[in-house]
């Protein structure tokens, strides 16, 4: 206690050991690192400091400090230097190999090589502007982690973990904020691999659902995302091919919800190409599925799309039929947005076929629903349409009289 002179150095409070305060001038010597501090702190609890044993204790601390410094110097000379000097790619690859995950290494290595080759093959393309995959630390770390886990699981025979990890990678690369096409390709491969592996395994995931089905589902999502780009670029052949594959996967996933969704997407795509017959076929499938699933949302979407196809074909009766169905459905489920929309659509059809009073009726319904939910956009639209229709009713009726 007599040693507690804080003027010459740092004071360490030792709560664990009888609140002894020890002055440690040596801490102020150059080269004392935080690591050393921590080590000193940790070992205080081991030593009982008494005025008698103080000299010995101080000697011990000095030795400890030296050894800590020496050790940290050694660490820096091997691991850190190679981390610093070698490329990220090399570090990641070597780590994987060192841990014994050689299959993961070879997968990642091939992926990096194909990325590299693609860049080399298309000089001057947009690809060049992106950062090469081998410089994305976070992505490489993620791939390493999950491939390694999958390999580890494969070795111990826990196939479900293998698939889980591969699925994770598939989803990781198909995440909306990271829709690089070439990585989606990788995601697709991962998921396809998973489907194949899961096929004869019959493994279940944690919630007891067969993994193969989950893999199919993931694969459908990937195909769907992949198809978005060609669809926007009006490259319909490619988009349809992908969406058809997606539809097959969705069917195999045995989840009716996904099957309906996939059929709907396919129907919309065919609609864009002008092939309304095929579009109607898929939309019908979607309707049936949604009907049995009592999925009013899906059913509504399908009827709306169907009405569009009918209208494009000039089949007014069928269009009206579809829209009336849509109105019924949305009214019964209380989807006010869709109801207002459906009413306006129906009003439009009557307006175009000069049945102005019926048109007014539906525009008014639409207007009221829009008012009810306070949707200003729809409300204004309905107002305009209703105004036009009323004007036409007035101008039409005197002429008729």
């Amino acid at each position, binding site marked *: 206690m007599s040693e507690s002179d804080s003027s010459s150095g740092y004071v360490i409070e030792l709560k664990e050991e009888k609140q002894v305060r020890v002055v440690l001038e040596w801490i102020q010597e150059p080269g004392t690192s935080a690591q050393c501090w921590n080590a000193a702190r940790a070992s205080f609890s081991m030593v009982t400091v008494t005025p008698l044993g103080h000299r010995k204790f101080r000697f011990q601390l000095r030795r400890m400090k030296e050894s800590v410094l020496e050790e940290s110097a050694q660490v820096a000379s091997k691991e850190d230097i190679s981390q610093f000097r070698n490329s990220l790619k*090399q570090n990641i*690859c*070597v*780590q994987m*190999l*060192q841990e*014994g995950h*050689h*299959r993961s*290494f*070879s997968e990642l*290595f*091939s992926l990096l090589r194909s990325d590299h080759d693609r860049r080399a093959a298309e000089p001057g393309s947009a690809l060049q502007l992106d950062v090469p995959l081998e410089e994305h630390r976070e992505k490489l770390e993620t791939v390493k982690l999950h491939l390694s886990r999958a*390999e580890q699981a494969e*070795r*111990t025979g826990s196939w479900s973990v293998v698939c889980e990890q591969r699925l994770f990678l598939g989803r990781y690369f198909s995440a909306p904020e990271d829709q690089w096409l070439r990585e989606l390709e990788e995601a697709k491969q991962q998921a396809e691999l998973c489907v194949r592996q899961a096929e004869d395994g019959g493994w279940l995931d944690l919630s007891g659902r067969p993994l193969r089905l989950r893999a199919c589902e993931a694969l459908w999502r990937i195909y769907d995302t992949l198809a978005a780009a060609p669809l926007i670029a009006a490259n319909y052949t490619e988009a349809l091919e992908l969406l058809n594959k997606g539809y097959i996967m969705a069917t195999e996933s045995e989840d009716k919800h996904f099957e309906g969704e996939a059929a709907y997407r396919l129907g919309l795509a065919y609609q864009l190409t002008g092939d309304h017959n095929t579009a109607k076929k898929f939309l019908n499938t979607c309707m049936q599925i949604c009907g049995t699933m009592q999925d009013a949302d899906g059913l509504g979407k399908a009827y709306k799309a169907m009405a569009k196809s009918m209208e494009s074909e000039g089949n007014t009766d069928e269009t009206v039929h579809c829209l009336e169905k849509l109105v019924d459905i949305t009214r019964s489920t209380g989807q006010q947005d869709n109801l207002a929309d459906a009413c306006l659509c129906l009003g439009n059809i009557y307006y175009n076929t000069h049945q102005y009073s019926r048109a007014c009726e539906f525009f008014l319904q639409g207007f009221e629903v829009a008012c009810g939910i306070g949707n200003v956009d729809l409300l204004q639209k309905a107002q305009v349409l209703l105004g036009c229709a009323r004007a036409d009713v007035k101008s039409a009726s005197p002429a008729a009289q």
Partner: protein
Amino acid sequence: MDEQPRVSRILPLAFPRGGDKLCELCQERAHLQCDRCRLTFYCNAEHQQADWVGIHQRICQLLVPIRTPTAFSLQRDGQIEMQLKKAELIEICRSVARRKLSERKHQEAVPAAQFYLRCSIDVLGPSTVQLVPSHLLLAEANMGLGNLSLVAEILSQAEWLVLKSPGCGHAVRQQLHRSLGHLHTATGDLEAALLNFANDVYFASEEFGLESTVTSDGYFLMADVFAKQGKISITRSLYSTVAHIWHHHLSKLLKTHIESVQNPDVMFEPSYDQGRQAEVDEVLGTMLEFEQDDSRKDPAQVALVAHCLAMLWFLKGDNLKALGFGSVALQASQLIPNHDLTEAVQGLLQLVQSLQTEPHPGSGLSAQPSPEDVLHQDSPSFQP
């Protein structure tokens, strides 16, 4: 090779004053000289004999023009010619050392490797990365003799040379890491060995591809370290990859071989030299033994490795061994229903049996000596 060295004592008066003569091997003061070239000196008869067997009998007369300064050798043309002669000498030393190593005569390889390094330094200068191959060769020879501290010293020099030239090729780095891995395995530092073999595999993949036999050798060495650490499942997995790479490689060689037998116009005879053959045999043999001792005993792996061995020995011309391993492979592959290997193994067995019943003289099925470059098809050769 039955030619005996001739030796005589150095007569100090026969040489100009100044500069003691030093032993060719140990650089100690010399007392003897080679009586043929009269330009090479030794401290004792033992070193003289070792150098003779190792390299000197091959290069004795080649040293005469190089070590005797003449008026011509001081001119420009003479210097160019001298450089060419030295390059030739270097290549001879390299190939002799390589051959001795592949024959596992490590002791005899040391003088050649030593002289190779010395000549290389003479021609290329003391601090170029091009010296690394000669350092590695010398290290390998000493490794075989168990001079680990010397090996460590040589390799650290090589490491320094590589460190100083960041742009040097993948192949050099790959070889350096492999040598370091061997050293650490021998000293028992398994983590360091693993790190180096991992780098070895990485650079081999960069230089020769993932499926090359160089890469697979790296995998095999890693598997050995993992086995020493008791991580048997990793070893098993690595062995399976190694077996697949060799299977692919040997199947391709076999196909070319059969084509070349059918079509004698093609004079391509791919085969391995004694050393490489022994190495491959050891790799495959180790893996077969491992699999047969293993409690899991995967018949697919047994079939694959045994088929590799059968192909290897068939290419070598040893039909008896080929038959033996072939039948092991067949037995194992029949344990697995619908195994795609069964057909290939049966094909090989039929081929061997048909050859045994009616031997084709000169059909090229016996092992033919082939140039060394063919043997190390996908391994690099450094020529300073």
